[in-house]
């Protein structure tokens, strides 16, 4: 109920200003901005006179533009044709909207986030390009194909303990098993308790 009283007390509803940051100076800027909008509605002659004064103050600007138009007339003409075509088809609008996504990304991200993502990309890239991994990945397709072929040949034969023991004598099987057992050993977390712990 005290918060209801707050709303009564405040000149603009009291607590509303809590939601967003806005300094009194910014409020002032916005108010003056509206005033500027009002000035934009002044008679056209006044606006032209104002523009003319600006041209006098910076005579080089239109000259540069005129020179650029003259020197690149053909290119600019073709570019305008493309632009007009894109505008008619709606592509220009789509392009503008897609470009606004870049601004969105820039707005949403911070230095810390970019650094964090770059660090993770680097970490993943380091793993992906590790020679041990690339060597294993390179050997995997041929190993898979050979295993599928072996499995197809053996599909009708019933596995027995003797056949398993016989396969263990194969040096390649022995090395493969040794590799897998060692891999399992090294994949084990060093501190089992570290992963723990949903306690209640």
């Amino acid at each position: 109920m005290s918060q209801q009283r707050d709303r009564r007390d405040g000149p603009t509803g009291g607590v509303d200003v809590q939601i967003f940051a806005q300094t009194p100076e910014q409020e002032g800027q916005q108010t003056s901005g509206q005033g500027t909008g009002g000035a934009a509605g002044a008679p056209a002659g006044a606006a032209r006179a104002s523009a003319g004064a600006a041209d006098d103050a910076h005579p080089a600007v239109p000259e540069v533009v005129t020179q650029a138009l003259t020197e690149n007339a053909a290119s600019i003409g073709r570019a305008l044709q493309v632009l007009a075509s894109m505008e008619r088809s709606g592509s220009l609008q789509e392009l503008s909207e897609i470009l606004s996504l870049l601004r969105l990304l820039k707005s949403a991200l911070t230095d810390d986030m970019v650094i964090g993502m770059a660090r993770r990309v680097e970490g993943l890239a380091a793993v992906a390009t590790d020679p041990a991994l690339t060597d294993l990945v390179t050997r995997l397709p041929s190993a898979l194909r050979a295993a599928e072929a072996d499995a197809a040949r053996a599909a009708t034969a019933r596995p027995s303990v003797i056949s398993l023991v016989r396969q263990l004598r194969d040096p390649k099987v022995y090395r493969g098993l040794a590799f897998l057992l060692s891999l399992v050993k090294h994949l084990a977390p060093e501190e089992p308790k570290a992963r723990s712990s949903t306690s209640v």
Partner: protein
Amino acid sequence: MDDVVIVGGGVGGTVTANLLAEELAPEIAASKVRIRLITDRPEHIYKPAFLYAAFGRTAPRAYRRPQRELLHPAVELVVDPVNRIDAGQRQVIGESGKSYDYSYLVVAAGARVVPQRTPGLAEAGEQFYTEEGAQRLYKKLQDFTGGTVVVSVIGVPHMCPVAPLEMAFMLDAFFRERGRRDQVELVYTYPINRVHSNPAIAAWAAPELAARGIRTETFFNVERIDPQRKVIETIEGTTLAFDLLIGIPEHEAPPFLEASGLTDAGWVPTDRHTLQVKGHDRIYALGDVTDLPVSKAGSVAHYQANVVAQNLAARLRGRPALARYNGKTFCFIETGADKATYVEFDYENPPQPVPASRWIHWAKLAYNQTYWMTARGVV
């Protein structure tokens, strides 16, 4: 060993815990630092999805994940609703009776709605700020055939300050898509003399509401609701009849914070740059619980988590804490009909909404799906 205790399993608490665990991996491995996250539920919920759930555009499985899956393996998860914080003894006491010592504490416990503070609202009003509320509103909207729908901002500040506008825009699109717009009068009310507390957003939103034929009522401070007559009565002495009321209730910080003496006027007094709780050097606050003049939005908690994690890591290593929060806020704004815009602003720079587009709407939908990477601290 230094104990960092983080209270709250929302975006702010989760990101802080993950960033700290990653940064302090050597100290954690050497048992010099322990990070505990204490939360009241084993699941993490992505609350912005409730807006979509109200329109049947998302399912619970899309906005729920086990909290454990989102946390760095080195973070200890404790599911134990907090009963109180003893700042003198540097302890968090759970409802289980267990106490958790801390060297540094991060309060990221969020805000909750309290519709019961407005007479008649709980009985007669709908809302979409809780999962239950969004599901109930979804059913109401499916059955609604015509009449007056009022979106009324009753309590400020509230979570996600642009969500009521989004609700109004999406309702307009919802009824248009079903060919029922002419049978529905949409009304949007706000307590002050414009349609949003932020002048720039209000200036953008007012013509958007008008263009959709959504009537606005400002200086509209709800005093009570008569559930029988279906009428809103205001402090200003006006009344407004409704067939469906979507009322944004008053919000509050979790009650254990007030019981622990850590609130002032309902929220945790927090330094706007360092995010330390005023008068408590070893306690930080972020997200919805603070009294800062920024949005109670997930993006704010996320940006603040970066600051708190950096400063805590520095202090734990005996270095100066230099990171400062600048008020950065980022919010998507769904404008209905599968379009959206966004705003970005901080303490010094006001927002400037860009024209709404489907691309930005898609970016929002994509973000909803990839939010879990944010919670993990990947983005």
